[in-house]
């Protein structure tokens, strides 16, 4: 449904790798913040239900505070001493550092949610199919089995419930039944696998190196996104190197230097982090227009 989903798996991989790298390697709270904002807007634009989004945000705030507090007990640098614990300083700066780290972690976690929404197993099979054709078969067969196994397990367990031997008489007895069910499903699946192996052989599996029919076209938009990503990444990398947008937490949090190079770096970050959200919004507008034109 989303625009982002339609990119080539390699493009997606490269984009997210860059997003991850930047979010994780910078210590600059501004960049970390932008990453978090980008992830949240991307999720919001992507149509994440409000309730789920609020839950993420709530959980995010709690985690940020928690990591902030945790860091106080680990780092003891900084000049503003709040109090002493076990002959160690508990400092405000350490708390700030923790908050900033929390923002980064929550940001990355949100990006992960976005990635999980925007990729599926088909991406994996398509990418691997070219390089490791046999491994990709193992994956597709696995994907074929997963729903079968879940179905068999549920059917078997509900049959035992119906027969009345699952009435809760202690956790261990229930766990025993569950594991017996799991085992019988395992046995059936393994046996089934041997039959499947013979059909695979009969259908020519393993005769020659496999071709791969599941693929995605590389489109101009993929090249475009890759170029943009590469440029932004280069700008940000150079910016980090020059230290024009450097930030230090200790002894007190402040920008070390705010040089000329900070501006392109901020622009590059904003562009990169807001790109997915922008793409989705753009796609939504077109979608809307296309329907209006029909009506």
């Amino acid at each position, binding site marked *: 449904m989303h625009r982002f989903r339609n990119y080539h798996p390699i493009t997606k991989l490269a984009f997210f790798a860059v997003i991850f790298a930047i979010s994780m390697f910078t210590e600059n709270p501004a960049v970390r913040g932008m990453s978090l904002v980008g992830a949240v807007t991307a999720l919001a634009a992507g149509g994440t239900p409000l309730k789920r989004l609020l839950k993420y945000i709530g959980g995010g705030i709690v985690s940020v505070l928690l990591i902030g507090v945790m860091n106080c007990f*680990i780092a003891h640098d900084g000049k503003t001493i709040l109090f002493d614990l076990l002959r160690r300083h508990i400092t405000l700066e350490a708390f700030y550092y923790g908050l900033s780290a929390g923002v980064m972690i929550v940001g990355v976690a949100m990006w992960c*949610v976005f990635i999980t929404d925007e990729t599926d197993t088909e991406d994996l099979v398509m990418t691997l199919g070219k390089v490791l054709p*046999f491994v990709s078969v193992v994956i597709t067969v696995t994907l074929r089995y997963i729903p079968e196994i879940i179905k068999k397990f549920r059917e078997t367990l509900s049959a035992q419930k119906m027969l009345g031997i699952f009435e809760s008489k202690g956790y261990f007895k229930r766990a025993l039944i569950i594991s017996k069910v799991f085992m019988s499903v395992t046995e059936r699946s393994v046996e089934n696998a041997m039959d499947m192996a013979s059909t695979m052989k009969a259908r020519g599996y393993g005769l020659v190196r496999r071709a791969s029919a599941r693929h995605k076209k590389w489109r101009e938009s993929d090249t475009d996104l890759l170029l943009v990503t590469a440029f932004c990444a280069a700008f940000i990398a150079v910016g980090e190197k020059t230290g024009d947008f450097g930030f230090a937490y200790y002894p007190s949090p402040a920008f070390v230097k705010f040089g000329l190079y900070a501006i392109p770096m901020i622009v590059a970050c904003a562009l990169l982090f807001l790109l997915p959200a922008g793409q989705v919004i753009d796609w939504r507008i077109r979608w809307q227009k296309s329907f209006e034109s029909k009506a």
Partner: protein
Amino acid sequence: MAERNTLKRIIAYLAVALIIPAMIVTFAVYLPKKAFMPVAVGIAFVAVAAFMLCFERGADNAAKAVLAAVFTALSVAGRVLFAATPGFKPVFAMTIFAGAYLGGETGFMVGAFSALLSNFFFGQGGWTIFQMFTWGLIGLVAGLLGPILRKHTAILCTVGFFAGPMFSLVIDVWSTVWIFGKFSWSSYLVTAMNALPFTIMYAVSNVFFLLILARPMRRTMNRITVKYGLLHQKRRLDRR
């Protein structure tokens, strides 16, 4: 001749299984954060890729491919089915079984792909590659100890018990660096303490599943060996 080859393999695998985690820990201690992350991701990625390449050579054997798929599917399905009980999952058990019965490389694949595929349900992230790598290692080690694990349930359970903490400890190195920016033993301790309930749960559930499934699994593998004539392929399966 075959004997010596096996010995060589065991040495090679042991080297991989011991040196790589050791390297990661060492890097975590001595490298600054900015260098640690790419190096650790790089190592994990190269290791996973190397094993995939090894496996690719053997996966043209249909029986081997499907069995690897079934074990992976069982552990992913298990992770989905037991979603209600955090940490209590048959993933380790299935990976260890796969290693013990199908060989180290297959074990590695089963572990690695269990992580990769189940994360499509539970959320992909930076941790995926480390999870793949660590679960893979567990499968690999199980493969090395295959002949013993197949025979002695007690040793099987012991390996399962220690696999839980081993997984947690390796993953915690990475989370420490990620969360606290640099590695220090005190921050590592905090992370490990936070993950302790999970670590205990892993160890307990591993022992539980291994203990209960060991005998039926042995029976099942024997059954298909007899019924489908895997017997004469057994050595090939092991070797690859």
